[in-house]
């Protein structure tokens, strides 16, 4: 069957896999711009995976739900501020900025708190018992189910009706590709948040604690680093970034508030983290942006049906040739 599959794919059975090179060339720059903006969401979520992985060597599978919590929090904030589904209202710039900042702040706080609570409930008891790392994976899955199902039971299976307060408008063009106000905001804010996170980890006292634990937990503890506090801090930072990512996601995709909305995005973000080199903050940013762009190129070239195949094929190919990701694992070995 492998052979058959291979021939089927090669022959382009059913006509769904023609290589549409003209489209790829034609849409190259607009795909790049859109991919970067969407990829910055991946990047921010990927940072959470990477931080936790760096410190605990643990794939925090429940991180995608932390993102979902942020999305719901931002949504409810906007709703609480009096916005309703339907046409985008006309607001002053100041009002838009204030409302978005407020929604973002609430999302970041909610996500951060939930991440910390998850750590307490699902991971800390296991660490106390020296559980093997696979077990963390299972509680993470369990926690993921619980958070998801809480939203399912209380909010139903349909997405929340979209609320949007800022309409995208093209600001300028890059090689013929329109760049919208939302895309600029999201990209700039995501990079800024990354700079802050990177600075926090690499330049502050608390960040040094994180790096120390990542490098060598035993020695770090002996040297007086409070390991539990560092872990809590790591989850908090990852959660806050996921909350911000949720806001940026909703600015681009207001229809995305739904109980199972984190799953695919979580896998993609984790893929992004691995692409760049899991445990490496720079890698997460690079991986996220790269994945966003590559998905778009792949879709133009092969057709929309191959969107996810492109992402996973890219992942496998990179790991084949560079098993530790593009930039390598480095939280523990970060420059001191």
């Amino acid at each position: 069957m492998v052979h058959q599959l291979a021939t089927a794919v090669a022959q382009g059975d059913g006509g769904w896999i023609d290589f549409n090179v003209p489209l790829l060339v034609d849409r190259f720059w607009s795909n790049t711009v859109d991919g970067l903006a969407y990829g910055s969401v991946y990047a921010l979520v990927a940072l959470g995976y990477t931080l936790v992985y760096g410190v605990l060597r643990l794939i925090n599978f429940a991180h995608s739900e932390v993102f979902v919590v942020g999305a719901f929090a931002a949504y409810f904030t906007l709703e609480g501020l009096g916005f309703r589904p339907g046409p985008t209202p006309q607001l002053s710039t100041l009002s838009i900025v204030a409302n978005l900042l407020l929604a973002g702040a609430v999302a970041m706080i909610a996500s951060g708190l939930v991440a910390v609570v998850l750590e307490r409930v699902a991971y800390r008891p296991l660490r106390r018992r020296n559980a093997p790392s696979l077990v963390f994976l299972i509680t993470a899955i369990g926690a993921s189910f619980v958070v998801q199902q809480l939203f399912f039971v209380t909010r139903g299976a349909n997405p929340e009706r979209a609320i949007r307060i800022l309409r995208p408008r093209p600001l300028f063009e890059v090689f013929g590709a329109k760049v919208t106000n939302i895309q600029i905001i999201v990209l700039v804010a995501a990079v800024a948040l990354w700079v802050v996170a990177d600075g926090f980890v690499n330049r502050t006292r608390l960040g040094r604690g994180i790096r120390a634990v990542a490098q060598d937990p035993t020695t770090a503890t002996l040297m007086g680093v409070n390991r539990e506090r560092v872990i809590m801090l790591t989850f908090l930072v990852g959660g806050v970034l996921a909350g911000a990512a949720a806001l940026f996601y909703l600015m681009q995709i207001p229809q995305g508030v739904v109980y199972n909305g984190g799953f695919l995005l979580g896998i993609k973000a984790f893929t992004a983290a691995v692409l760049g080199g899991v445990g490496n903050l720079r890698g997460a940013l690079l991986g996220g942006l790269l994945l966003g762009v590559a998905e778009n190129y792949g879709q133009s070239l092969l057709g929309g049906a191959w969107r996810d195949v492109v992402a996973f094929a890219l992942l496998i190919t990179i790991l084949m040739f560079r098993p530790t990701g593009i930039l390598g694992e480095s939280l523990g070995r970060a420059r001191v």
Partner: protein
Amino acid sequence: MSGARLVRLLATAAAVSLAVAGCGGGGGDAPDGRDTGAAAPNVPAGAADPRGDGKAQCSGVNLAYVGSIAGDNAALGIAILNGAKLAVKQHNDANPNCQVTLKQFDSEGSPDKAPGVVTQVINDPSVLGVIGLPFSGESKAVGATINQAGLVAITPSATNPALARNGWRTFFRGLGNDAVQGPAVARFLTEELKASKVCVLRDDSEYGIGLAETVRGALKDKVVCEDQVKTKQKEFSATIGKVEQARPDAIFYSGYYTEAAPLAQQLRDRGVDAKLVAPDGAKDDEFVKNAGDAAEGAYLTCPCVPADAFTGFFDSYKKEFGVEPATYSAEGYDAATVLLKALDKGLKDRAAVLEFVRGYEGQGLTKKFRWDATGELTETPVWSYRVENGKIVKHKPIGS
């Protein structure tokens, strides 16, 4: 994720239709050429009421809902289940001597869970009729088994045309299949909208693929671009890039409202102003609400008759469940009503109920119910609708 007709019963739409009909003097064409409904076929004035005459006598006979209640595909299943629940509740409240229980079985919408629950249903002799199964995949998996048991199953949402071609005597479809709508949509695009360049976009569901095939087959060389999106995808920039390059007059999106809403919004945001047409899978209030103002002016097609008598259903549903009826709620209600009529007749075994349903003829909320030998409805009129001022209003009949 196949299955696909969406008859979301909107009080608003119904109210608008009524208002328009009133203005037009009770019939005829309104000045803007819109058919106003009095001339519509099968106005469900005499729609079957699950309450009946209140004198029904029965005991020990039940119905079952088999479909998704939890899991990823829950939304669609719960809407159907609630519709059916409402019918049974109305029936039981009105008929003290005929108390019917609607037993619920969760198939998770998945072919591998369905056999277990269906076996359970079959082994329960009190169950004389099934509302379900909602999805084509699970229906395919267990159809033969249900047929062997001689148990009537009316699917409120599975639209794969092949389902009726298996020779299952107990399979009934409560809505038109995908092969009915496609040609009508193609005619609507070329004749009504005068489109000579059309982009056909579809999702990856059986419904979306099947319908896109029939539309594409009828449009032939008028199709200038095609692309597929994934279920749950919410970001469409690459697909929109393809559309931008092709510069079509009209875009047909073959899929459900969950993807249609963000797609419509992103298309309009990017300045694509081609006419947008989507099928019954997107004819849902959620589409209009979720697309913001981007849904305005979009056309929706549906093998369902505009309903003027739905307000009662809408209100009771909302009162009962606290939410508005959703996709297929009315189909579930109709399917349950047909089966309740059989029980009210005092029928006591599956064979009798099967015969009753085979010979059934009557108006329901969504359409007239009469089935041919394969279990397809004999009349499945197709209508177009339009989004105006944030509401879905009927446009005109486009085929049958």
